């Protein structure tokens, strides 16, 4: 299976690990990621105002590129996934946006929301299958208690994101089980880390992060994993009272699959 891949700005800079481990693991699982050409920043936040057009164009270009290749568009960063998936939904449902965006972009043929946006985790679940990942795991992370941190952007609004049950998600927990570790369920796993508020009001972000980390710790977690660079930053840099190691899920996948040793061995 080959996907069009949209890495996004942060995965090229501060979150290189999320990208690198993601690519290597996909390769090991027989999934080809073709980075789309000349992609532009998605804007990082979905423009909620109904009259925003220009701020959605870069996402539409990426979607059109995937459509041109006849591939699904795979994302890894939660924010990119959120923006691109929602803009795609708008292109499917909002006549006004569809008309104006196409008039502006002057594509070979109008883009009408044909591409399918898939998050890396959804690819693992629906394309590879967690059972197959379990079979492919060489270094199961036995006994490690891991808290899945979903945050906001993957789950909400559930009507559009259709990622998982927004209040009781299981996809990352299933992933944790597949790599041999033990998932920890805690109430704050789908509550906000503070996001960009860190720039405006650091104490507000710290308050959020402390609540999340405490909730995970109380449930017995030894580690938190996430799919979002901004969540990663907040959970790490804005933790004050409590602290847990925070990792990208792709890094654990990479470890569990034993890719490193394979390469060293070869």
């Amino acid at each position, binding site marked *: 299976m080959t996907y069009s891949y949209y890495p996004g700005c942060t995965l090229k800079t*501060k979150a290189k690990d999320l990208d690198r481990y993601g690519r290597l693991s996909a390769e090991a699982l027989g999934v080809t990621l073709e980075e789309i050409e000349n992609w532009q920043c998605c804007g990082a936040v979905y423009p909620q105002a109904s009259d925003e057009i220009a701020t959605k164009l870069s996402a539409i270009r990426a979607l059109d590129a995937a459509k041109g290749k006849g591939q699904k568009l795979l994302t890894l960063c939660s924010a990119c996934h959120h923006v691109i998936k929602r803009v795609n939904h708008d292109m499917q449902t909002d006549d006004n946006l569809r008309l104006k965006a196409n008039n502006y972009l002057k594509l070979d043929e109008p883009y009408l929301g044909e591409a399918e946006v898939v998050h890396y985790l959804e690819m693992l679940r629906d394309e590879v299958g967690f059972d197959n990942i379990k079979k492919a795991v060489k270094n199961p992370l036995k006994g490690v208690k891991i808290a899945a941190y979903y945050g906001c952007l993957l789950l909400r*609004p559930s009507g559009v994101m259709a990622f998982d049950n927004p209040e009781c998600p299981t996809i990352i927990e299933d992933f944790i089980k597949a790599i041999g570790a033990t998932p920890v369920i805690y109430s704050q796993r789908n509550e906000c880390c503070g996001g*960009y508020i860190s720039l405006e009001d650091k104490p507000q972000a710290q308050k*959020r992060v402390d609540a999340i980390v405490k909730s995970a710790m109380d449930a017995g977690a030894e580690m938190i994993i996430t799919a979002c660079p*901004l969540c990663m930053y907040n959970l790490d840099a804005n933790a004050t009272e409590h602290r847990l190691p925070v990792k990208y899920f792709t890094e654990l996948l990479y470890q569990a699959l034993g890719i490193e040793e394979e390469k060293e061995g070869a």
Partner: protein
Amino acid sequence: MSNNITTEDILRISGVDTRKCMFCGKCSGTCPAFDEMEYHPHQFVYMVQWGMIDKLMESKSIYKCLTCFACLERCPRNVQPAKLIEAVRQAVIRQQGMNHMTENDIPGLLEDKLPQQAIVSAMRKYKK
């Protein structure tokens, strides 16, 4: 100050129908930024509906929303208060000289680990 922004403007920008609200307060019950806000999500619905737009535009509350979509997801009436807050914020920063944060503020906020995503988000949220 009068911004000449009306209820209709906010409803148009946001695409929200405030009449759907039954004022249960679940949005404000779930909001993680409640303590930081002067006006809370359910008050945005009420105040937009009754034309108290200036008060909202002048309030710091519009910069405290985390855009976490908890209110939007959990609202039993699908009112989408987050969109109202966003619309009021847009109504402010779209005015001349009303940017809440600009590129010039960024160097002072930079940290080693801070991802680009945070800066891009802030520019989108606070500046036009």
